């Protein structure tokens, strides 16, 4: 198999991009970024367990301007992946596959993720 370069049938390059494709890609990207976010969560817990001075160091790092941008990005990833994940679970039941339905649910996921990110960021990050 390896070393043989087989022709690929055209796929993503021949389609007009639409919301379903964007959200599908975004689900994977946000999932990967959340794996890194889990690392940040584990570091935060480990610092908390290590005592007040270790915690203060991590808290200072997490409160820096650059890291706050990262925290907001992770917050969006979290709420998007959560909402779109529920969308996928609904699809697993066989429901919601009509064109109008998956477009509407896609937009609903985006609005929900943006609003939740704004609220969480305002309350817990800034």
């Amino acid at each position, binding site marked *: 198999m*390896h070393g043989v370069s087989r022709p690929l049938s055209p796929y993503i390059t021949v389609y007009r991009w639409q919301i379903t494709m964007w959200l599908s890609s975004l689900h*994977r990207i946000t*999932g*990967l970024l*959340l*794996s890194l976010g*889990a*690392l940040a*969560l*584990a570091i935060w*817990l*480990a610092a*908390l*367990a290590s005592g*007040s001075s270790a*915690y*203060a160091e991590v*808290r200072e790092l997490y409160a820096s301007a650059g890291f706050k941008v990262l925290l907001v990005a992770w917050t969006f990833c*979290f*709420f998007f992946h*959560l909402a779109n*994940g*529920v969308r*996928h*679970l609904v699809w*697993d039941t066989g429901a919601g596959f009509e064109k109008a339905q998956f477009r509407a649910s896609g937009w609903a996921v985006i609005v929900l993720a943006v609003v939740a990110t704004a*609220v*969480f960021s305002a*309350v*817990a990050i800034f």
Partner: protein
Amino acid sequence: MSLVTPLNRVLGLGTAGGAGEHWWTQRLTAVALVPLGLWLAISLALLPDFAYATVVQWAQRPITSILLILSVLTIGYHSYLGVQVVIEDYVHAKGLKVLAIMGSAFGHAALAIAALFAILKIAFGPVA
């Protein structure tokens, strides 16, 4: 020529051996993470501040410790399963693919256990 009968092939687990299990565990952890994730986000947002004493007091409550343990273990497994699919999709050289999945497994296990240990240490530590 395969000596496996068509019936056995259908009753078996397919080419890789564990796709059904992977699919089911992925969904199981996904469903669990809906309430766990919402709980984590809401309880973090409800903390009055992120001072050491405040957070320790929160983390030491038994219900917090239990839900945190459930969360980090479920997150770890869900993340491992997701990263595995991404590796399988984009890393085609077999040796590198196996190494990457192994590395991901070790990393996820280490992280989940470290988080678990931290939660227990906080829970059983001196009351702040």
